[in-house]
């Protein structure tokens, strides 16, 4: 058992982290909008935490707050992500489907180049030596675990609230929802900003875990990986992101004995999952229920 934890414990932490990123895509998907912007806000949140954790002028604040510096970083990342999310959401959510996905990817790329050129973000090297609250990497479960539980609980409440039902009405038929007097744009932006806020906080929690933060944290590949968690897991259920992240993060590790050909098989699993589970893993359970 100890051997198992030593070998795969960190994988579990990464699964929790990636599942949270997947869930940040689920928020806009509740209104039927496919946004890939999350990874940009993840990067932004990470930079907020990295700068607050290492900037020399903030040293007195860090000493005064001690461990409570970390929650403060999360709050600042949350606020920054929500503000930027609002500013991006209003123009971008006029677009739908693949066009929205493209516009949000353009945003991610712009953000990547901008942080690469901002002196405070450390250029191509990025920021390193970010203070770590725990010595053991497994202890980060205490960051991501509660956040995941909180998010799932929040989603569970949201899906049963009036706001959640409005979200779903837009997903099922935008035109009908508009005809019923739903403020479609307002609701879409609301869902989008919730996703941005979550991604920002996950970024702020991840910066200490990785110890270093640079422009490579917010790439196109990572954005598509998050999308794959949601689609493979099931885009119509909050459990989908969790299942998808668990499968796709552990797959390359499970296939490790295959050495060089493991990524070929990884791609094959992606294709087969799309073909045989079009509703995602969560869709298999949903069908059984009905």
């Amino acid at each position: 058992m100890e051997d198992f934890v030593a070998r795969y414990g960190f994988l579990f932490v990464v699964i929790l982290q990636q599942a949270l990123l997947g869930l940040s895509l689920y928020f806009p998907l509740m209104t039927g909008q496919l946004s890939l912007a999350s990874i940009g806000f993840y990067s932004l949140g990470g930079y907020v935490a990295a700068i607050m954790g290492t900037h020399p002028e903030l040293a007195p604040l860090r000493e005064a707050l001690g461990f409570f510096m970390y929650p403060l970083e999360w709050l600042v990342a949350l606020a920054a992500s929500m503000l930027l999310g609002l500013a991006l959401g209003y123009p971008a959510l006029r677009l739908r489907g693949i066009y929205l996905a493209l516009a949000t990817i353009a945003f991610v790329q712009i953000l990547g180049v901008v942080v690469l050129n901002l002196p405070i973000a450390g250029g191509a090297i990025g920021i390193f030596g970010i203070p770590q609250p725990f010595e053991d990497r497994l202890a980060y479960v205490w960051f991501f675990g509660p956040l995941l539980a909180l998010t799932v609980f929040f989603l569970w409440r949201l899906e049963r609230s009036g706001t959640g039902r409005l979200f779903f009405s837009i997903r099922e038929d935008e035109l009908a929802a508009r005809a019923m007097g739903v403020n479609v744009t307002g609701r879409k932006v609301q869902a989008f900003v919730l996703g941005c806020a979550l991604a920002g906080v996950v970024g702020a929690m991840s910066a200490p875990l990785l110890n270093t933060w640079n422009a490579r944290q917010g790439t196109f590949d990572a954005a598509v990986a998050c999308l794959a968690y949601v689609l493979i897991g099931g885009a119509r259920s909050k459990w989908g992101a969790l299942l998808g992240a668990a499968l796709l993060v552990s797959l390359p590790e499970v296939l490790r004995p295959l050495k060089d050909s493991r990524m070929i098989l990884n791609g094959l699993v992606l294709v087969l999952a799309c073909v045989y589970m079009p509703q995602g893993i969560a869709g298999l359970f949903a069908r059984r229920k009905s």
Partner: protein
Amino acid sequence: MSLAWFLQNLLNGLSIGSVYAVFALGYTLVFSILGIINFAHGAVFTLGAYLTYVLAVGEFGLNGLLAGVTLPFKLPFVLALLAGAVLSGLAGVAVERMAFRPLRKRGADALLALVSSLGVALILVNLIQYLFGAEIYSFPPDVLGDLPPAMLFQIGEEFVAVRTIQAVLFAVSMLMLILLVWFIHGTKQGKALRATAENPDTASLLGISVDRFILGTFFISGLLGGMSGTLIGVSFGLAGPYFGVAYGLKTLAFLPPELSSFKEAVAYALLFVVLLARPQGLLGKNAEEKV
């Protein structure tokens, strides 16, 4: 900012831009028919470059499963380019069979094809790495035969250089564009293709075999992708199995040097603005959406 400087940059931009146009047309063809982006297109681009390399040079690199294998023949560059492009077209057909057709037949969400085509891209890229190795391949300088490497033109007191390869890039790309426009607007097959893009159901009622035309579109798309991969590869070298993926995303913007580190940000900002202002594209006509 002199005239020669302006002309030099204009020529550089035209040459590389025309290859991007051929590459992008591969995306556009599939998008216009299926309304979905084929993420495997960048991998087919890479595959085309590698296949042409092996056919033209006749041997594999030092790593990978096929290290040290030599072919009994070496094709002239033009033939290798064509053969590489046709093989890439077949790879495009395989992509359709694996990632798109099964989903279409099952009536799955169109967005899922993003992930399945990404899966095929992952397979292709890693297959290339497995077989060809991860090292850099570069075409030998005499691959085009005994042509001078560049021509110099004098303008006033300054020179404008046109690399031979730049001229080849531009000429081949233009030829492909003209052929494609002729095929789509000048032949009966092209007309059927346009009908399929307009409305697959009506097209199939009119006796057009929609599945065959989708397959054909993927063949042409792969052909264009593989050919542009070769052209970029001849010009800049093959920087490993992932190089097509980077080109698939990249757009080049032309900017003053002091802002050059922000050039990609400006290019993507332009993309963002264009999407907001004209989602149907710069020159596209607005399609009426029926309720």
